[in-house]
Structure formats: C-alpha cells, structure tokens
C-alpha cells in the first residue's frame, strides 16, 4: 500500500489514529482511569421499534459506547444467542434501511455515546461500500466493526472510511479531518506480523477476541486475552478493547484492568430473549411478546447494564485495583 507515505508506517513519531471511539477511550482512561463499557445489540430484535427502546435502555444505564449489530442470515462468528436474535430480527422484517434509521435515532438521543456498526461484509458489499460509509456517516455512526473482513480484503473500505466523517462523540471528525473508525479484529491465533498489519489498518480501536470461538457467554474469559492486548499494543495499536465471552460484572472488572474497553454482547442480548432460548421451541414469534413481558425484559437489560457499568468503574479504582476480583464464578 502507501509505503512511501510519511506517517503511515509503524514506528517513529506517528500517532495512532484515535478516531471517534479512540478519543472516548482516551478520555475515560486519562480523566476517569477506567475502561469503557461497550454494549452490543442487533438492530431489529425483537422489532426495529423495540430495539431502539432496548438501545436507549443501555444508554440510560451507563453504557459508554454501542456496537450496533446488523442482522445477517449467515453469522459465522456468532453463537446461538446472537444467532437467535439476528434470526428474530430478520423474521420481524428488519431491513438494512432500519439500521440507518435506528442509528440516527440513537445518536440524536445520546450524541455523547459513539455508535459503531458491527456487520458481516456482504450487506455492505451489496449496498455499495462507499454508499454505506456515506449513509453511516450521515446517520451519525462512528464507524464499523467487521468480523469477517480482514484488512487484506478491505481496500474499498479503507478508502471509503477515509472519505467520510465519523461522529458524533468526543472525537467526532465531522468538522476536522475526515475518517470513520474501522475496527478490525485480532485473535489469539494472530501472528505478530498480522497484529502489526491489523493495528496499522485500524482506527478507533482494535477488537481483541478473548477466546478462540464464537460469541456467547462463558464462565471464564480466555487466559490469552491479557497477552493478546499487550501484543496488540506492542504491534502499534493505542486502543484495544476486548470482546467475546465477557458477560458478568466480575469479568468486566477483570478485563477492564488491562483493556481500554470491554465489549459485552450475548449476555445483554440474552436478557431480551426471555425464556425462548435458542434450539428450543419458541412459544410464538419473539416480536409478539406482550408489553408487560417486554417491560420485564428491558428491566433485566437495564439491571445487567448497570452492573457491568459498575464493573468497569471499579476495574482500576482504588488501591485494590491490582487484586483479582470476584473469582467466585
């Protein structure tokens, strides 16, 4: 790529591009000495309208950053919980246009909370990469997390993300140098060479998958997560968030000691699934849940978000910061 261009190579006096989310992460780190809490929910589950309520509930209970999932028919990096919600969203008729509408509503509601859209690549490809970037920016999105797009295949996205401004949020680039955040993933299996490549191509933060596997709540966070974060930083990334398998406040606290952000997905999504666990017969389509039941689920979502928010706020705080917390699981 642009080998001869000053400032793009690793090393020397370059500053890593913080983008919209990276500025938030830096502020929380420098001013509050804590990691960010990122919450994932798919658009459209159980319906587009109710997914907005759920997203606002997360905002109200202390989430710092939102990962907005695009429901997709073939989510190969997702476990049963997120699969069920994505399928429910599609069954409820959710379209790609809903993503931009939900996004706009959300960023209007909480301009201080950056929203990164998490999507498999084909919907973007079909929509048109530059057109997607433009509409994402217009709706106030901070950028994209791309679970099945590695930088090697991302030339179109690298160009499109440079051509449109991300925001709102503390690092909004709307009135400065343009650039949507582009969050690529690293895994425990990534070689040092690939970590360098990925860190060099990312903006905002790098998403470290704590375990080898798909999304889903786990009893323990992978023991390779901390090393992976350190390796990714050493490879040139300033900001690294950890996702996959973080589901409790204790885990958020543990991961928050060393990561710039903690991303929780399946555990939050699960509160919205109610009793209808994947693989089991569901009593009627999920979007036909009555108002009382829905309110109860939102209540559980809010409670879990608040616990997780408390978790990241106590990850490093006080003298006990280095003591491993809550190893009770």
């Amino acid at each position, binding site marked *: 790529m642009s080998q001869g261009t000053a400032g793009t190579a690793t090393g020397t006096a370059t500053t890593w591009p913080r983008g919209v989310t990276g500025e938030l992460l830096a502020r929380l780190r420098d001013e509050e000495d804590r990691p960010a809490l990122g919450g994932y929910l798919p658009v459209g589950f159980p319906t587009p309208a109710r997914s907005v309520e759920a997203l606002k509930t997360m905002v109200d209970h202390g989430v710092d950053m939102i990962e907005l999932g695009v429901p997709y028919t073939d989510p190969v990096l997702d476990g049963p919980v997120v699969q069920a919600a994505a399928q429910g969203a599609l069954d409820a008729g959710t379209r*790609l246009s809903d993503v931009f509408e939900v996004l706009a509503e959300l960023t209007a509601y909480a301009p201080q909370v950056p929203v990164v859209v998490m999507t498999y690549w*084909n919907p973007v490809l079909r929509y048109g990469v530059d057109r997607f970037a433009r509409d994402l920016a217009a709706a106030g999105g901070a950028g994209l997390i791309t679970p099945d797009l*590695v930088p090697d295949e991302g030339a179109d996205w690298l160009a499109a993300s440079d051509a449109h401004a991300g925001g709102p949020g503390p690092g909004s680039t709307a009135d400065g140098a343009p650039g949507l955040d582009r969050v690529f993933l690293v895994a425990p*299996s*990534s070689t040092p060479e690939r970590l360098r490549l990925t860190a060099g191509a990312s903006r905002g933060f790098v998403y470290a998958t704590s375990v080898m596997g798909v999304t889903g709540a786990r009893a323990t966070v992978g023991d390779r997560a901390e090393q992976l974060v350190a390796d990714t930083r050493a490879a040139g990334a300033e900001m690294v968030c950890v996702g996959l398998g973080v589901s409790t406040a204790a885990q958020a606290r543990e991961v928050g000691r060393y990561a710039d952000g903690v991303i929780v997905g399946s555990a939050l999504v699960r509160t919205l699934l109610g009793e209808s666990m994947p693989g089991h017969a569901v009593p009627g389509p999920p979007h036909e849940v009555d108002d009382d039941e829905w309110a109860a689920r939102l209540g559980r979502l809010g409670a879990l978000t608040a616990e997780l928010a408390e978790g990241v706020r106590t990850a490093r705080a006080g003298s006990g910061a280095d003591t491993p917390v809550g190893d009770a699981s």
Partner: protein
Amino acid sequence: MIREGDPVPDQPVRDALTETLAHQVAERLADVQGPYFGAFGGRFVPEALIAALDELETEYRKALGDPAFTDELARLHREYTGRPSPLTEVPRFAAHCGGDGAGARVFLKREDLNHTGSHKINNVLGQALLVRRMGKHRVIAETGAGQHGVATATAAALLGLECVVYMGEEDTRRQALNVARMRLLGAEVVPVKIGSRTLKDAINEALRDWVANVDTTHYVLGTVTGPHPFPEMVREFHRIIGDEAREQLLERTGRLPDVVAACVGGGSNALGLFNAFLDDDGVALYGFEAGGEGIETGRHAARFSGGAPGVLHGARSYLLQDDDGQTLPSHSVSAGLDYPSVGPAHSWLHDLGRATYEPVTDDEAMEAFRLLCETEGIIPAIESAHALAGALRVGRRLSEEGRTGPDGGPLSIVVNLSGRGDKDVATAARWFGLLDEGVAAQELERQEGRG
C-alpha cells in the same frame, strides 16, 4: 518461441523471453492460483482463521512437491478408491441426444464407481493426508447430500482421525441412509437446526466449530468454495478426473471432445473435469446448476441465472441474495446442488465466457435420471442427472444446428457421472410412484423418518 537450431539470444533477450514464457505459463487458465480467480475468491473470514489458512496453504504447497505425499495419494487412489475410474460409452442413452444428423457419442466419466460412490473421495483423501502432516487429529466437515460426509468419515476411519460431520436437519431427512452410513464409519453426525437447515447452515456450523477448535482440528471443506486456499486446493485434488478423462478419450477416439458437461453445486466435480480442457479452445464447457422448480418460481439454486456477485463462506462469487445482501434460500430436488453460492473459479470462468452455465429443473433431471437407468443400467446420483439432462439438451441443440464432429462424424460429449444413485432411490421411488401400495411404501416412510 525459441526452436532448436535458432541462434542463442544474448542474456537480456533471454531474460525477457524467460519472463514472457513464465507469463505465458501463468496465463494457462488451468494453472491460475488463488487467492483470486479474476474478481472472485479471497478470504472473507474472521481473523481467527487466517493463521490456520496460512498454515494449510504452506503445508499444501509443500506436500505437492513431496513425493512422500504424492506417492501415498496416488497409491490410495489406485488401491483404495479404485482409480482410474472408467470412461463408459453409453450409446443407447446417446441415441436420445441426436437429431437427424450424425448424432453424438456420449462418454460417462464414472466417478460413481469410486469407493464411497462419488468424486468426493478424491479431495478428502488429499486433505486427510495433509491433516496427518499438520499433526492434527480431528476433522470436521459439512455435507449436503451426505456424499462428502461419507467420504470424510471414510478417510477419518482409514487414518484414525476423530470426525464430526455437520448436516442440515432437512438434509438428514432427505439423505437418511447416508447419516447411518457416516455413523457406521464412526463419525458423529450433528443435525443443524438453524436457518434454512441445509448445506449453507451446515457450513456455518462447521466454520463456528473450526474457529473454536482450530488448534487441533482441520476443516475438510467439500467443494471448491470457501476461503483461499480451499478453492485452489480442492481443484488440485480433483484435477485427476479431467486428466484421466482426457487421456482415456484421446485413446478411445483419437481426439478431444466437443462438449464437456458436469453438474455444479459448489463446483468441485465440474472444475476437476473442466480443468484438463480449460486451455483447449475447441472444447465447449458446460456447467449445469439446479434449476429447481424453475427460475421464474424463485425456487432454485441457479446462481448464474438468479444471483449476483457477493460474499458467502469466505469467498466472493456469484450468490443468491436479496437487495440487502441477505443470503436467499436455495431449492433443489438434489441436496448436493442445493447451495446459494458457487466456487469462485466458476464465477471467473463464467465472466470470462470460457464456460457456459445453464439451469436444469428438477423435472428435467429426474427424466434424465430415469433414462440412464433404463437405457444403460446405471443409476446416477440426482446431482449427476442434472449433467445428463444438460448434455442431452446441448446435444440436441447442436444437432439441430447441424453441428457435427470433424469429418461429419458424431459429436463427442463427456459427462461427469459424479456419483451413484443408491442414496437417491427413496426420492426417485416417491417421485415416480414406484412403490406398491401398502407395505413397501410404509417401510420407506418409516426409514425416512416421516412416518
């Protein structure tokens, strides 16, 4: 070109010539390597899998140059699979594709006679030997018709590997006998109950398993789809089909065929056969996709008639998808062709115009299925019956156009008989109403798990 006796050019000229020659060699369509076939292919997978794909590519390229590997594979082909597979001329069947002209000679490449009953074993043995070289002890596979699952379970038994096969729940019903076969061979069969419950969803589950267990596990992908190096590697393991057929036909008829035909699910049997003829301009290549109930009904698996380029399962290729890029469900009477995408090399050959892809409906395929049974005493897989139906259509069309072979003789058509039809007897019995009322029908229903 430099001929013997030409004056030896000086060094810079020689260098330039070498470069040109190297370029010409790479220009041979049959030698094009991944990750890209034109605008198609690539690696659209989670980062977690990249290291394993790199390892696989390295090991695969090393193995191809290692006689210990190639000799062992050749021995297995010969002694275990029973290769070379015969080339059978089928004149009574061929009588149905001529017009008034000289007609056509039809030759079947008999992959149905391989051990396990289809071409799938060629690829599986190659990959299984690689697994051993990589020091892994567990293999996973997806399967649609069950043929690839059976082949993988077979190779796993042969080499003492643990084996898990993912199969859409819908397919476990359509191909119940193959489920039992895999279990007999010691494999665990996992019915996949999400999405459309067919091949596509089985691949999703296999990929999820692979991401979680990649340290110990190899994913034996069953066709020329998926992330690099699978499309190239699986083509390599199947090129023996075309290499043999080409030699057999030259020996039999003294010339190359006019038409080469194969069914296209993911595209492995077709690419394996096509590969040997890609650079012979006079040979017309035809791939036949599942037209299901007809393109106009939307219930089909004809990616080149009803699809557009997109990404699924790690590769960019033609894909059945809606305006939002969501994968559309495919439909076919044959589980092995019931897949919404296709190997990237086929998309490349399609866009190049080097191969022609046409849909064949369920009805047409079943008619050809029965015709081969009755005229030649060969029961084909329903997948392969799509190729037979397509060959009949092309043969008739060319005859009507007055096309003949050289010197006015008959056309020469090679059809890949990719598999045998034992697994499809229940489907055919129901399709044609072949069972007597009462006991037999009940027994069939019971076996199929529908009773």
